[in-house]
């Protein structure tokens, strides 16, 4: 571990410790914003672990999220809540692996379309299952509070950061970086590119499923229309891109301002929310193509250049 790594880890640990204190220090309004931020931090960071280096845009977040929600919704009847989280993770990872094996050999655009369709596919399968079995919407009545949900999501985000940190320094991370630069070169260097991509894709799959599982008690009532909202996939992508995918801490830099922007828009302009969000997307794409990370590094570069000339 280099000195720089050590500094990064220390800062990360401190920030997470600070974040974990939020429920003690704030009222429940900010706590509910905190839940949103923690949720999107886990989703967007894990999304960027895969999509950042590989440049494959995955729109499957809603599919995995919904599967996790249903895992808790169904599982809570038969087992303690805590057990549903690892089960959701396994189901999410296995599904991601299956999808990855089927599509990651294809070029980018097929993958995007497939992942977009995946949420709808899973949703239709669950609806079909309900129609055949006559099952109704699921009730998740627990004593889990907003604080518990917040802490679980913050813990999950910390795990995602840890995973990202370790992968970046492993052989897998090295392979991923080469693959991201040039897949052809990677293949000629003896890297099994398809396997690397599938392994990496399992991370956002598992994380999104666990996020859905954690949030199920918050929704109380689970039905397909609630569990599988395609908007979720797009929000994760836009937040990650706003932050920038080049750094592990990039997406969270996008998640925080975006959550406050969203909250401000829906609070102030309840009748034009969707319109204003669309405009913000455009602004982000045109003015911040590399996200906040790009902006920050540019500024940093300018400062150090000026330092060099002086």
């Amino acid at each position, binding site marked *: 571990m280099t000195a720089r790594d050590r500094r990064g880890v220390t800062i990360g640990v401190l920030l997470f410790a600070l974040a974990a204190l939020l429920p003690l220090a704030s*009222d*429940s*309004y900010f706590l*509910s*914003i905190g839940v*949103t931020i923690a949720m999107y931090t886990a989703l967007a960071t894990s999304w960027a672990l895969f999509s950042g280096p590989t440049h494959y845009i995955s729109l499957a977040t809603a599919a995995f999220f919904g599967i996790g929600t249903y895992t808790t919704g169904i599982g809570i009847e038969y087992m303690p809540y805590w057990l549903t989280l690892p089960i959701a993770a396994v189901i999410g990872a296995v599904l991601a692996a299956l999808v990855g094996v089927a599509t990651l050999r294809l070029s980018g655009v097929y993958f995007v379309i497939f992942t977009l369709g995946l949420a709808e596919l899973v949703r*239709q399968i669950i*609806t*079909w299952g*309900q*129609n055949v079995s*006559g*099952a*109704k*919407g699921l*009730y998740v*009545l627990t004593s889990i509070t907003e604080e518990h949900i917040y802490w679980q999501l913050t813990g999950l985000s910390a795990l995602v950061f840890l995973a990202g940190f370790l992968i970046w320094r492993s052989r897998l991370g090295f392979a991923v970086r080469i693959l991201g630069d040039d897949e052809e070169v990677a293949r000629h260097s003896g890297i099994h590119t398809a396997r690397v991509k599938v392994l990496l894709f399992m991370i956002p799959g598992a994380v999104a499923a666990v996020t859905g599982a954690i*949030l199920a008690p*918050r*929704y*109380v*009532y689970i*039905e*397909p*229309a*609630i569990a599988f*909202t395609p*908007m979720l996939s797009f929000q994760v992508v836009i937040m990650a891109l706003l932050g920038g995918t080049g750094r592990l801490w990039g997406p969270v830099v996008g998640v925080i301002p975006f959550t406050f922007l969203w*909250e401000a828009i*829906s*609070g102030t302009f*309840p*009748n034009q*929310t*969707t319109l204003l969000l669309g405009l913000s997307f455009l602004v982000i794409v045109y003015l911040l193509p590399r996200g906040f990370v790009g902006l920050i590094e540019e500024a940093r570069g300018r400062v150090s250049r000026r330092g060099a000339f002086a």
Partner: protein
Amino acid sequence: MTRLLTGTALAALFAAGGALAQETLTIGAVGPKTGPLAGGAAVTYWPNVQLWANDVNEAGGLQVGDTSYMVEIVEYDDQTNPAQTIAAVQRLATQDEADFILPPYSTGLNLAAAPIYDRYGYPQVTSTANTGNVEDLSAQFPNLYITLGAASGMVGGLIDVMTELREAGEIGNTVAMVNVADAFGIELAEEARPLFEEAGFEIVYDSSYPLGTQDLSPVMQGAADANPDSFVAFSYPPDTFALTEQAIIENLDVGVFYTAVATAFPSYQERFGESANGVMGIGGVNADDPEFQDYAARHEEVTGQAPDSWASAMVYSTFQIYQQAIEGAGTIDREAVAEYIANNSFDTVIGPIEWDENNNNPAYWTVGQWQDGVFRGIASTGREGEVDPIVKSGWE
């Protein structure tokens, strides 16, 4: 400038001080303005929010002791997304410091918000939530009230009407049944199968179609080929219209033609005119009740559109419960108002509403029918004003 402002303030003070003290009550409203449920909310939910605020303020506000409170509505779009409903109710409770929050729209969005209403002690008298799980819910959320009824009652009402017609010799005992493969459609169909059998009906055609199916002609042809005496569809708004259209094309010859959600919409009558006569649908109202007629007239006048003949009046009636409870309790203290709601019955545009032991309204409309251009309730679980059903005769 300062002097001008002071002058205006003084004038306002005198005007207000002349009679009773007048204050403002902040009332929150959260519902879909975008997303999949925006269409339904635009018919049954938002116009009633507007109408209710208008009615209350026109009458000089809510009378609480010596003070009259004008109501000011703060509304948020939840985008048909439970996470947004939660956020908006949270915002209303803590940021806008709403005195009361009207119930959200639909089963899922109401239940997602229930923990927040519960935490801050806001009574949540729902009008569009439909659940078969009232016991567990009322144990978990003591401030949650359900008025719309349950699927079992809706289906039971329909089967009673059909049994009555069969015993009068008006229809035979074969039924073609279809349902939309989505939450409420599935639930209704699931309830209906054993009940039809029990009542001695024979289901000669039983099929479902996915939500959003555009072309329903195969479904209707299948039903027509089975040559049923009755046709029953547990459908949603778009397919309610599409199935009726196909029935007209096929000239489906049945004595009972039933479609579910949206049959009671005024646009159904507008679209099908004479052909709608005799069509049965879910819900209903006492169309002859002057209270309801007065409500419908005001609805049209204030919002520019007619109410539907089922959920619209239910939504408005729950708003009336808030109104009567605040005035009846004589305070705007939420705890006192919640207690008043729990211990009283209310006189509303759909008639009296009383609670059973699970804070559930046991008396609701289950089946209505278009009769000469008016959608009338023909079956209920204890409402007044049920009229006799008529047999469907042709589509001309």
